């Protein structure tokens, strides 16, 4: 305890009650004990860097959905510190505003020059996963890789070579994943998963409902044009944190429109703090129950937009059911209890499931039904669930019922929407391999790829997958181990080197995945390679940055250059480069893409680089209204669904539901319309809850982008990895704030500090995803990696990762 000095203030408040910063804590000590010396940081920088220094233009290009401008101050080829964009005066309405980086981007210097940054190519010396490596030359590393690629192609076929899903470099013409895709396409093709770890269930659900998948709605800034916006699980403030991105846009849009925002989420997120007027806590995985009860009230209180539904929707009620199906298979019959399950989806029914009082559900339905337009949208968490397809569809169905589709200030109920400017990519060519497995099932494809079928495993482009995965290329990603469900299962499969024979990880840092590589290649970072970069997918602005690199760290290299060297060894260099150097490619893309899209750019790339960043105005009121044509004339502008309409009853899903072979577990079924499905390890899994009573979600955390930046000590000291738990649950277990607890289920155990906070619902804990796995000798994880506890079981339709569907118990050590 600190000494309590006399009070100098006029107020008589005891100093003990006054906020006192500066208390050394256990969490701090552990950060310090990482022993991160400052070997690569500038030796001494007594005075702050002066403002007249020269800045280079660079970016943070990771997968947070945004891209941010970083402006490094450089001395002798090293970054001394980074600044961010200050190139324009903010004018949100015109779509011109500073692309200010979040704390992750701002920590770039510490991240780049960290002791765990990879310096040289490495070869595994111990058992796979032992983390034992020795330094080798690039020559040896690339020789080994090229040799194995040829061997696998010859012995097992191109389908045995897999480029694992990875998003550590999400933008940039040459630094993204296309380099390897191009190489492999020229070599005869490779195995690539469909969809991703982010929104598989949403993409599939929306495809059947709206005929289109992926951020199909109005840009989220459109809330400026409505009086009511309802965010089902959308946490834009933490997940889209860029100062040039949606967090800022939604703040401005809400102010402009004086828009009331309701956030429905198990957590009182940072979005609740700055955006929400009201928070409605909900149990994870029950969003479809809430949506169904809202529909019940909308229907029974005559708040459905009948005109819209009649002309634009298939299967709302018996009158709009397609031929050949029982009329009571309609959506309305399901909701009112006249369908197969004979259960009316009343507010009382949903209250017990969601934890939301029935009166609040009724009131919410009336608010939604009474507002026109109403911006209904959803976050990505509610679809990353065991029955995530149903959650996503049930929420989006509300936008159809209320006729808000295709309206300014309305939406179709999909994920946060965007409208980013175009930025170029290296052409990847076409993949001669047509058979594809769902991304999440890559590990299954390692062990028994040839047993995987269309009906059982969602194989596309073939009835059966033709090979087992023998070679894995993992560039800028951590899904090999850290981000994939059930790490102990992953370890089991990967430790057998006769299954996947070679794993190559190319990355900037010694990640949890890199520990499992046979060959590790050190990658140049964003700041160490010249490129052309524009806004990432979750942005609404038009700009292009032409980056100037600093010296790459030790022997690290850009992925494009590495692929050129591999192409040489594979005898396809000419085809790969088309005779262009890296710089030639950038100039070519500048000419054919950038200047076409932004004709005001200077004539040459060299001139553009001198300026660095170019922005173009785009008025926020001119952002697209998606589905407007369909709304105006659904016959002339049909959707891409089989009927051309919004399908609240989908014959295609009906067939799938009857024919696909699904593992017989609770919730593994595919209804033909948006329905609530009780699932394994969900709120209604009584058997599971008897042993592991808490629902665990794995929310995004502002201290990291997925697992990116997870080891930066500057970030960890102010944003440590902690488990959130409600005081009611903590009390029951005698757990106190900040103590280290055991979090466990049948699959694993994590030791982690707990944040006891009313900001999470009782019965629910969150272990934010992305922290790096750090097992001890007994397999207990001390890194706080949520995938120690998740289950490797795909969702029924999308075969997506249900990483928010988990049951756990938490106890004192």
């Amino acid at each position, binding site marked *: 305890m*600190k000494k309590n*000095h006399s009070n*100098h*203030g006029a*107020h008589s*408040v005891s*100093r003990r009650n*006054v*906020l006192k*910063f500066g*208390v050394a*804590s*256990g969490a701090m000590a552990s*950060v*310090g004990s990482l022993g991160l010396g400052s070997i690569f*940081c500038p030796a001494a920088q007594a*005075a*702050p860097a*002066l*403002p007249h220094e020269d800045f280079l233009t660079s970016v943070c290009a990771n997968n947070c959905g945004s891209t941010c401008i970083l402006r490094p101050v450089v001395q002798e080829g090293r970054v001394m510190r*980074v*600044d*961010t964009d*200050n190139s324009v005066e*903010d004018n949100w309405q015109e779509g011109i505003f500073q692309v200010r980086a*979040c*704390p992750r981007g*701002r*920590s770039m210097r510490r991240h780049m020059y960290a002791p765990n940054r990879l310096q040289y190519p490495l070869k595994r010396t111990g058992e796979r996963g032992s983390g034992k490596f020795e330094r080798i030359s690039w020559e040896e590393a690339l020789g080994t890789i090229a040799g194995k690629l040829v061997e696998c192609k010859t012995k097992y076929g191109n389908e045995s070579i897999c480029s694992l899903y990875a998003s550590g470099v999400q933008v940039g013409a040459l630094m993204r994943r296309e380099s390897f895709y191009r190489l492999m396409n020229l070599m005869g093709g490779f195995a690539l998963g469909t969809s991703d770890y982010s929104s598989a269930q949403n993409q599939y659900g929306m495809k059947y409902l709206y005929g289109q998948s992926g951020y199909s709605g109005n840009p989220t800034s459109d809330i400026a044009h409505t009086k009511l916006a309802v965010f089902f699980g959308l946490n834009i*403030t*933490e997940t889209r*944190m*860029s*100062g040039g991105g949606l*967090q*800022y846009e939604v*703040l401005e849009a809400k102010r402009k429109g004086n828009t009331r925002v309701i956030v429905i989420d198990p957590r*009182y997120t940072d979005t609740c*703090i*700055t955006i929400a007027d009201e*928070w409605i*806590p909900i149990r994870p995985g029950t969003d479809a129950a809430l949506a169904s009860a809202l529909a019940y009230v909308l229907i029974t209180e005559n708040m459905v937009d009948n005109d819209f539904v009649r002309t634009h929707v298939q299967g709302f009620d018996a009158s709009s059911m397609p031929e050949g199906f029982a009329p009571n298979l309609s959506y309305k019959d399901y909701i009112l209890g006249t369908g197969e399950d004979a259960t009316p989806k009343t507010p009382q029914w949903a*209250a*017990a499931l*969601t*934890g939301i*009082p029935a009166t609040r559900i009724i009131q919410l339905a009336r608010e939604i039904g009474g507002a026109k337009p109403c911006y209904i949208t959803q976050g990505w968490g509610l679809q990353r669930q065991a029955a995530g397809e149903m959650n996503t569809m049930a929420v989006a169905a509300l936008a159809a019922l209320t006729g808000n589709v295709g309206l300014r200030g309305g939406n179709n109920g999909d994920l946060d929407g965007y409208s980013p400017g175009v930025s170029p990519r290296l052409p990847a060519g076409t993949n001669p391999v047509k058979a594809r497995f769902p991304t999440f099932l890559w590990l299954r494809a390692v062990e028994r790829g040839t047993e995987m079928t269309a009906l059982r495993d969602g194989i596309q482009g073939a009835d059966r997958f033709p090979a087992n995965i023998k070679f894995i290329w993992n560039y800028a990603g951590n899904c090999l181990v850290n981000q994939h469900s059930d790490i102990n299962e992953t370890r089991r499969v990967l430790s057998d080197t006769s299954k996947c024979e070679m794993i190559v990880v190319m990355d900037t840092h010694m990640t949890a995945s890199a520990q499992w590589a046979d060959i590790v290649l050190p990658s140049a970072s964003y700041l160490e390679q010249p490129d052309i970069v524009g806004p990432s997918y979750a942005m609404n602005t038009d700009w292009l940055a032409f980056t100037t690199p600093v010296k790459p760290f030790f022997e690290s290299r850009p992925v494009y250059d590495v692929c050129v060297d591999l192409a040489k060894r594979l005898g396809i260099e000419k085809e790969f480069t088309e005779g262009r150097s890296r710089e030639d490619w950038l100039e070519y893309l500048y000419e054919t893409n950038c200047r076409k899209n932004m004709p005001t750019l200077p004539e040459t790339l060299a001139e553009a680089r001198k300026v660095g960043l170019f922005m173009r105005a785009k008025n926020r009121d001119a952002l697209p209204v998606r589905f407007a044509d369909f709304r105006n004339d659904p016959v002339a502008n049909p959707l891409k669904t089989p009927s051309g309409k919004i399908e609240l009853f989908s014959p295609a899903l009906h067939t799938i539901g009857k024919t696909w072979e699904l593992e017989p577990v609770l919730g593994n079924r595919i209804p033909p319309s948006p329905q609530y499905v009780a699932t394994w390890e969900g709120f209604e899994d009584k058997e599971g809850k008897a042993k592991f009573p808490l629902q665990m979600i794995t929310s995004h955390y*502002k201290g990291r982008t997925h697992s990116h930046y997870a080891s930066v*000590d*500057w970030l960890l*000291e*102010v*944003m*440590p990895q902690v488990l959130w738990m*409600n*005081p*009611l649950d903590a009390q029951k277990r005698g757990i106190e704030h900040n103590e280290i607890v055991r979090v466990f289920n049948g699959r694993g155990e994590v030791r982690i500090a707990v944040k006891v*906070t*009313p*900001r999470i619902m009782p019965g629910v804990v969150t272990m934010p995803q992305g922290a790096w796995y750090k097992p001890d000798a007994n397999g207990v994880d001390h890194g706080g990696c949520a995938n120690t506890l998740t289950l490797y079981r795909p969702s029924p339709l999308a075969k997506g990762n249900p990483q928010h569907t988990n049951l756990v118990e938490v106890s004192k050590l």
Partner: protein
Amino acid sequence: MKKSYAFYMDASRCMGCKACVIACKDGHDLPLGLNWRRVPECTGGAWAEHADGTYTQNVFSYYLSVACNHCESPVCVKACPTGAMHKTEDGIVQVDATRCVGCNNCAWNCPYSAPQLDKSKKHMTKCNFCRERLEVGQKPLCVAACPARALDFGPREELIAKYGRANIAPLPPASMTEPNLAVVAHKDAQPANTRKPFLANKEELS
């Protein structure tokens, strides 16, 4: 008379992202365990469980972003036995490293714990309002960093006249030091003299 400044923060916009903290740390090359700017989280409210399995609650939460407030009555200056801690003509409270003996008295007395001992440098350090940047017409690093545009700075008298001095939990009452921190309150802001322990992230404040 030299121009003097106050910090301004709009707590209704602050999302607690800590870009300000990291921009300051990077720009001033601060060691681990030492952050001149910090982001306290203030959280309160309780839950009620009902017989039908539903819940009601009155949870609230907000953030503040706080560095040294270059107070009008800087208790750190009063507490300094060597005169190292002083308020300059332009209102910036700063440490004269040549006179500082690192006794920590200023830190103990400052209710914001703004001055912090740099153990390797063996003297106190603190926010200097990015004096070097102000002198060439630039914004302090934290202000220029804020992705939510919640942080700003401006002429002291004007800002304080318009917004008053920060008097919000979990900060101490403004009357203690007269901080030059103008705050637009969050809708759920609690008064500074509350006796409830609303500070929710003590361990993140180093």
